[in-house]
């Protein structure tokens, strides 16, 4: 396995060096990130095969910007998010983050330094009905990062929670503080989740489809709130979504994932206006258009997303690609290459 990984790294050296030379204000830099989930069989739990959930992914996020991560279900975008907040430990690769201390590799953090890391990096989860403990009050939930980190006394925490609740638009804070999650609506719950993530003033927040479980009517409100807070507090987001419209509204840069690989990355407007990878084009052609008279071509891909179990060493998109050729089949998955100014694509054919 190790030999295979190092071989892959050698495959695209120019790409890797190019990625490392971007601007100084980079807050997150991910290199060769890999997460394999073993599929265990037999009575001795030997791992015979692996799901390549995230397979050799490189990207960076500049301070204050939002990077969108789009892709269909099973493409590994949530796994990337969980790796970045260290809910999962990467199998391989480096995650460098410019936190208040120094540039550090968080992929191998443990114990006290991992706890310290949680001051700076937080996560907003997809389902606000699941991410709040039904037996704890809003105060308990929002102040949890403070209490487990031992920050402030109870009066200070109360003030801070009130401040955050007001900030996320739950005012007056006193009326919400000692309620239980089941007394609140979905939008209010997601605002609580945002308040919990921001209470330690993190510099980087992973938002895992924070609006996908909400009613369309309140979605914009929550999205605007997140943008305003980002501007106000200087938070950098990794915004995971499957909705290109949401990605366009929320993010400055966009990375498209397919089967554990980033297939296209660049400025959001650039990627959406000028998609290079056939998968991105297919995704874009599936976006609903509010025009009932419009007739359009069906997306030019076939089949559905496969399971990334021990993938064959060829382009991951080969089976569904309209442009697939011999090159795509004979070579390993194409490396990310800069096809335009800060516009990266992993495809042999474009």
């Amino acid at each position, binding site marked *: 396995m190790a030999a295979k990984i190092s071989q892959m790294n050698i495959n695209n050296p120019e790409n890797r060096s190019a990625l490392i030379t971007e601007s100084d204000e980079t807050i997150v830099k991910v290199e060769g990130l890999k997460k394999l989930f073993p599929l265990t069989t037999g009575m001795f739990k030997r791992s015979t095969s692996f799901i390549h959930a995230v397979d050799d992914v490189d990207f960076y996020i500049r301070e204050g910007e939002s990077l969108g991560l789009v892709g269909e279900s099973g493409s590994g975008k949530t796994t990337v998010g969980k790796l970045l907040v260290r809910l999962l430990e990467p199998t391989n690769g480096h995650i460098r983050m410019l936190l208040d201390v120094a540039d550090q590799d968080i992929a191998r953090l443990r114990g006290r330094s991992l706890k310290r890391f949680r001051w700076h990096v937080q996560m907003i989860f997809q389902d606000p009905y699941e*991410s709040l403990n039904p037996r704890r009050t809003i105060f308990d939930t929002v102040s949890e990062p403070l209490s487990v980190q031992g920050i402030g006394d109870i009066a200070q925490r109360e003030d801070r929670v009130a401040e955050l609740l007001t900030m996320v638009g739950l005012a007056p804070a006193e009326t919400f503080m000692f309620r239980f999650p089941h007394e609140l609506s979905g939008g209010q719950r997601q605002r609580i989740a945002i308040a919990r993530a921001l209470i330690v003033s993190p510099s980087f927040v992973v938002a895992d489809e924070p609006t996908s479980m909400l009613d369309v009517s309140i979605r914009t409100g929550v999205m605007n709130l997140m943008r305003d807070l980002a501007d106000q507090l200087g938070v950098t987001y990794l915004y995971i979504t499957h909705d290109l419209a949401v990605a366009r509204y929320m993010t400055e840069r966009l990375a498209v994932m397919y089967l554990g690989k980033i297939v296209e990355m660049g400025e959001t407007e650039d990627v959406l206006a000028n998609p290079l990878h056939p998968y991105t084009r297919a995704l874009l052609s599936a976006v609903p258009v509010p025009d009932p008279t419009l007739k359009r071509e069906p997306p030019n891909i076939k089949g559905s997303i496969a399971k990334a179990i021990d993938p064959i060493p060829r382009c991951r998109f080969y089976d569904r690609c309209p442009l697939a050729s011999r090159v795509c089949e004979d070579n390993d998955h194409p490396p990310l290459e800069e096809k335009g100014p800060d516009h990266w694509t992993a495809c042999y054919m474009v």
Partner: protein
Amino acid sequence: MTDIITKSPALQTTPLATDIPVWRVRLRLLWRGIRTNVALFTENPIGLVGLAIIVVFASLIVIHPILMKSVWDRNVYDPVLGIDLAIPFHPAPPSPEHLLGTDPLGRDVLSQLMHGTRSAFILGSLAAIVNFIVATTIGAIAAYFSGVVDSIFMRIADLVLMMPVITILIVLGSLLNLEMLHLAIVIGILSGLGGTTIIIKSQALTIKVRTYIEAARVAGGNDFHIIFKHIVPNLLPLSFLYMTFTVSAAIAIEAVLSFFGILNIRMSWGVMIHTTQYAGYLLDMSKWWLIFPSSVSISLLTAAFYLVGRALDEIVNPRLRKR
């Protein structure tokens, strides 16, 4: 801003939550939670019947020492050492002096019954508390850590489930000098390690995968924090339910062991049956006052705790909950 608050009569009558110390708000929330659950409980006649029986027996515990101090002569009515010398033949049938008659040794059966109630309650609640602590902790830990820890505890649980509890306790009782306290702890641990743990663990497994556990991890909570602040509070309703079942089991087991006469307990319902059997009156229906009070009490109290458990189950168990 403060002017507005002090001038507004509505705000004066209901002060802001932040003006009240946190512990009082918590107490109020706890009280509110209890009230809604009590409201649900009282809707269920089964639970109320069970609760009524328990209350009647509990009142016996309170009445007994008062009677002993005021009306009843200690030499005559002491549940263990008393003897009524005015009556020539024991066991004597019920009479105005002895409402439930006397036992073969001349002691008052009613006094014994009341004293035995106290033993039953103490034993039951102690066993239930031990069971609760053991089962909830092990269940939560096994579910949270899974892997080897889980395997070890689940194999122990299988072993305990397989063991004949009564037989083991008989062996233990004959080897050791088992008193009430020891018995309660042994029953609590045995029931806590066995079936209850498996049920609590399966519930903990459904909680472990919730997103709020991940959120607690991201907040910086360690394993201890997650287990005892997030998983265990969500297990409490189910744990309480199994506590009531343990009370029933403990009372029944004590009766069986006392019947065999292998416990070092001076007076309990089981001991009363044992005395009857020892004197050879066990199957003598003409001496019904010897066997019926204690055996009916055992049946009633175990049934009562079981009924309360069923009623709690309807509140706790989402499949049975009506609203």
